[in-house]
């Protein structure tokens, strides 16, 4: 056992967990915003995949990684806007609308990948810089999107619980008719939140291509958008809770990676199941205690 522990250097493990938690935290916070306003967002996976691609493509085209991040965020907002249009305007079942976007994301990124990236001479974009936190002794280098995600946690928390916009958001998620009666434009609030969730998930998508590997691979998000949803539920629809839950999943991810390297005899596929099985266990275990916003998933018809 001590032999095993010596392989798992603790500081390295913490950093790996923090980094792996980046897209989960961002997407889960996006989910929090969207669902607090009453719109279920299972499109997070598709939004991240599209943004990962768009950010990469923009970075390749402009030779500017920062522009890539910006485009990834805008792409996320556009795709989320489609989800908003379908589910808010056209009253499409929100789960179906999310599924549409997830399939569309595979189709679009797959088509463009095959045409422009596969078999091309593109050497990749390189990755965004990692920073060292000067106020911490022996601080490791941490990627900028990870730092941005950490900085956004208090921001999202503040917006949601300490601003008028946040209050309106929560009102629309709990009782849209009452909100409308009080003079709140439910559609506008829901649109804003879904699109903001796209911006957050879009930044999460940029992590995959522009921070993690500097390249795009088909389906590279690998279900992280869905795990983020589980993190959102486990975190009881709060930004801080979502972050802590993301750390749990990311920890499982980082641990399975480290156990493989440290020569544990379990097959790597069994270790690879770890984050997914954990998600199932957590979703099943959390639900009794976690309560969704009352109007979550219910389309709102004006005057209805």
């Amino acid at each position, binding site marked *: 056992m001590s032999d095993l522990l010596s392989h798992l250097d603790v500081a390295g493990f913490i950093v790996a967990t923090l980094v792996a938690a980046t897209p989960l935290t961002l997407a889960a916070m996006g989910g929090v915003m969207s669902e607090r306003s009453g719109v279920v967002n299972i499109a997070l996976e598709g939004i991240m995949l599209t943004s990962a691609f768009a950010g990469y493509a923009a970075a390749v085209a402009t030779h500017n990684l920062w522009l890539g991040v910006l485009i990834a965020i805008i792409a996320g907002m556009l795709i989320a806007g489609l989800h908003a249009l379908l589910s808010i305007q056209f009253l*499409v*079942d929100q789960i179906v609308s999310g599924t549409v976007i997830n*399939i569309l994301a595979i189709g679009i990124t797959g088509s463009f990948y095959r*045409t422009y990236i596969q078999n091309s001479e593109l050497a990749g974009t390189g990755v965004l810089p990692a920073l060292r936190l000067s106020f911490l002794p022996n601080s490791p280098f941490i990627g900028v999107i990870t730092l941005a995600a950490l900085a956004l946690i208090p921001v999202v928390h503040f917006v949601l619980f300490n601003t008028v916009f946040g209050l309106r958001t929560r009102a629309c998620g709990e009782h849209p008719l009452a909100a409308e009666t009080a003079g709140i434009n439910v559609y506008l609030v829901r649109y804003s939140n879904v699109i903001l969730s796209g911006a957050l998930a879009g930044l999460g998508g940029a992590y995959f291509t522009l921070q993690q590997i500097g390249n795009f691979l088909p389906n590279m998000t690998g279900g992280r958008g869905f795990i983020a949803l589980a993190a959102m539920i486990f975190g009881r629809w709060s930004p801080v809770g979502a972050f802590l839950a993301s750390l749990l999943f990311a920890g499982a991810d980082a641990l399975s990676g480290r156990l493989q390297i440290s020569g544990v005899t379990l097959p790597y*596929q069994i270790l690879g199941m770890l984050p*997914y099985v954990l998600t*199932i266990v957590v979703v099943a275990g959390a639900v009794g205690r*976690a309560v969704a916003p009352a109007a979550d998933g219910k389309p709102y018809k004006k005057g209805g």
Partner: protein
Amino acid sequence: MKLDRALRRRLFEAVVLPVLSVACGFVVAGVAVLLTGNDPIAAFTALFQGAFTNDRAFGETLVATIPYIFLGLAVALGFRAGLFNIGAEGQFYLGAIFGVLAGNHLQGLPGILHIPVALAFGMLGGFLWAAIPGLLKARFGAHEVITTIMLNYVAFQLTDFLINQGPMSDRHSTAPRTPFIDAGAQLPILFAGSRLHAGLILALLAVPVVWFLIERTTIGFRIRTVGFSQGAARAAGISVAWTLVVTMGISGALAGLAGSDEILGVSHYMPSSFSVGYGFDSIAVALLARSNPWAILPSAFLFGAMRNGAAFMQLETQVSADLISIVQAIVIMFVAAPAMVRWIFRLREVPAGGIQITQRETAGVTSET
């Protein structure tokens, strides 16, 4: 000619809406082809040739239609109870694994027994795999969308473990795959020189069976009632939890049957890239058919044709086969949003609103059951 209002609505929902949706899907996909710098006319011509007119193409389209029928029925059955079974893909894998196990390890059994036993094993595999999210939903209220998707990933890892130098791998093969199943367990070929197998007959039989199950049996009545309103079902004394578990189980059994049928009829062993997304596509198959078992047939045929034609299209024109995912997404979008189709085509008559697939009362990510 003046049709009465109710008939006009039914005609719109059953025929006009799906056809317009598919048409819109191809238009949007055509734009995507243009954006990737290719010729959409050439791409769609190749798609059509690959699906129908090339040598043996029609038979191959039918071969691809078979799993779509089983899987489309599986997803549609779930929808009828308000369940969104996105796990058909994983259940398809489990059905294949169980099919290979039975196909390999029951040697000496006569084919007339071996084939049904192996198919039933596949159903069992799918049933067990789908019963997990069913139980989790019934007992803990865990939303099936998340649990079934997670189980898909677990199924992929499990398959990779089993066949990639694992306990089910073929020691004599360099590729990661299982050994071939017993010759006696293979489904007979319908037409010599083609790959079209007797699974087609099974699939065609499955349609009326599922229709009968949904429309004419007690369990079907419970499924429909729970799908309509869990509150009403509870008030009528129906056990909602039990119905959800049974519905997921039957849905998984159909998906598992698709998996074992694919092993027994087409590949005769399990390769590492077994499915290429049949289970995911079947969500679109079921939605396009509006969860009506009979309508699964044309819907599955369309997707079989696209799947088969896309491979040829990719070869001929360098347009990615992923293009059909775009068609699929747009098709689902329009089928689920009739208001949008009417708006685009300026059709009169106010729609009754979007179709409801998942239940309102369970549509959040949690539910009480």
